[in-house]
């Protein structure tokens, strides 16, 4: 079991070690995910137990195939766990139906992917508002403007993904992830397809989102420099979290 550290996201970085003051926004208990390949069972997660607290920016690092992407899919409700528990904002994902997990993703999770995954037929504006539409609360112009300004997208909203640079596309993807005010943002190698300069810009934006809006973020990366942007880093190997105490 990890000894998690509570870190306040404010610029004061008030840190309280020891007893926690808040309930975790995300908690996994002995989480297993086993894939079947023919008759062979391949465990991707082997009893992972972690706590992520509101306002934290946590990086998950590990080599290819260590199970970090699987972990992101399971804690984000995209994939069902084989055993164990995942509690997201008090909801146990492991006992939920597919449609209940869909509803939970809609209201509580924002995803950012390595390959941006914007809809190529829609411009930046509609890629972002699509999330609000699916969320079902209608278009919130105030929230949209705050997010667009924060991510420096105001001048690029009428452009389609094919007309945007990689860094701009990832900023649109970030905007889409946070526009509906999710409880947690799950970023899967968000800088994996970007050059150094764009990577730095995106990482700074993630940090800014965490600091200014108090957005809880879990980011997967294989890059130690990128991981260092988080408050703490969880190291994974062979489907297990082997070290989770690094604090920056």
């Amino acid at each position: 079991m990890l000894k998690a550290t509570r870190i306040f996201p404010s610029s004061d970085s008030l840190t309280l070690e020891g007893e926690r003051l808040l309930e975790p926004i995300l908690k996994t208990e002995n989480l297993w995910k086993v894939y079947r390949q023919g008759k062979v069972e391949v465990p991707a997660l082997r009893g992972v137990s972690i706590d992520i607290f509101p306002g934290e920016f946590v990086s998950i690092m590990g080599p290819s195939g260590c199970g970090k992407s699987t972990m992101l899919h399971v804690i984000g409700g995209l994939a069902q766990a084989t055993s164990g528990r995942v509690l997201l904002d008090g909801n146990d994902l492991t006992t939920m139906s597919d449609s209940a997990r869909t509803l939970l993703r809609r209201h509580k999770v924002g995803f950012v992917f390595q390959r941006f995954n914007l809809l190529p037929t829609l411009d930046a504006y509609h890629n972002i508002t699509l999330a609000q539409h699916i969320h079902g609360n209608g278009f919130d112009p105030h929230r949209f403007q705050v997010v667009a300004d924060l991510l420096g997208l105001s001048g690029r909203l009428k452009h389609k993904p094919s007309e945007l640079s990689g860094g701009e596309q990832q900023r649109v993807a970030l905007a889409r992830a946070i526009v509906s005010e999710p409880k947690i943002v799950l970023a899967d190698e968000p800088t994996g397809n970007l050059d150094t300069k764009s990577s730095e810009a995106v990482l700074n934006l993630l940090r800014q989102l965490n600091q200014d809006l108090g957005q809880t973020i879990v980011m997967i990366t294989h890059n130690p420099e990128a991981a260092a942007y988080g408050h703490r880093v969880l190291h994974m190997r062979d489907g297990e979290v082997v070290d989770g105490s690094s604090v920056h």
Partner: protein
Amino acid sequence: MIRYMIVQNVLHRPLRTFITVLAVAVEVTLVIIVVGLTSGLLAESAKRIEGVGADIMVQPPQASYLMAFSGAPMPIAIADKLAQLEYVQAVAPVLTQFNTSGIEIVYGIDQQSFHAVTGGFVFHQGHDLQGPNDILVDDVYAKSKNIKLGQTLQLFGHDFHVAGIVEHGKGARLFVFLSTLQEIGGSHDKASVFFIKCDRTDNTPAVTDEIKDLLPRYEVRPLKDLMTLMTSSNLPGLAAFINVMIGIAVVIGFLVIFLSMYTTIIERTREIGVLKSLGASKGYIVRIVLSETTLLCIGGAVAGVGLSYLMSAIFIKLFPTLTILITALWVLRAGLIAIVGGLLGAAYPAWMASRKDPVEALAYE
């Protein structure tokens, strides 16, 4: 939002959209033209028979409304019996023969009685039938075949002399002597139909009843009702034909939309994964697929209606004797058939899209 998304999707692949819309348009055109041709044929036949001016038509047992397809002719002696009935003013025996080379009905007429019933022909050129090889053609036929007065016209392997060109609308487009047609068809002293003129129109029901008593198994039809009777649903053969053609059209639409949406879903697998990651429900994804299908089908239906009018104009230009009846009801029906067929075709791809595993969909290359 969904509306904007599907419009953008449709515009994103213009060739796919064009081919799909065209296929649906062909489906709609097929329905409208097939129904238009059959309805046109029926309406035109009915109009021409009405144009004869008779009050009652007597045909052999189980004869069709379409006289060209009628069964065995009746003894001509029946005409004398009919003429003796009360309120009957005139009886015109007519032998019909289908000219397969020109797809036309030829009337063999007894000129005197036919004139008595119809009031006589209106001549554009020429005169009444005089010799056994004389033929009268109506103005539409003459124009479409470029037939001139006095020329020779070959029908049933027989050379006819065009004696006159008459105003259209008297039952058929070609008229020869009854005796000539009887000889050609080997049906001596026979007639296919008797047109009866009553002394007063009010007496038509009474005369109809009299004839039914006299000739119990025969088809006795007041011509006032003919137009309403001449619908495809009253002609079982034609109704079946139309249904088969509609079935073929629906299958074409179904397959085209199925293939189009199936390949679209495969192509958009990753996008579906993205929508799912954003929390889009199965219903939301089905709605997107079916909305896009509806848009394509509506586009196809509108194009199909336009194409139908274009095809109709081309057909009429090429074959002036044809009548294609395009009605608002069938335009609407053809559109609905295309949309329903399209939605059925899109049902499986939509279901397939909604059930995609989000993780696999996001990993799709």
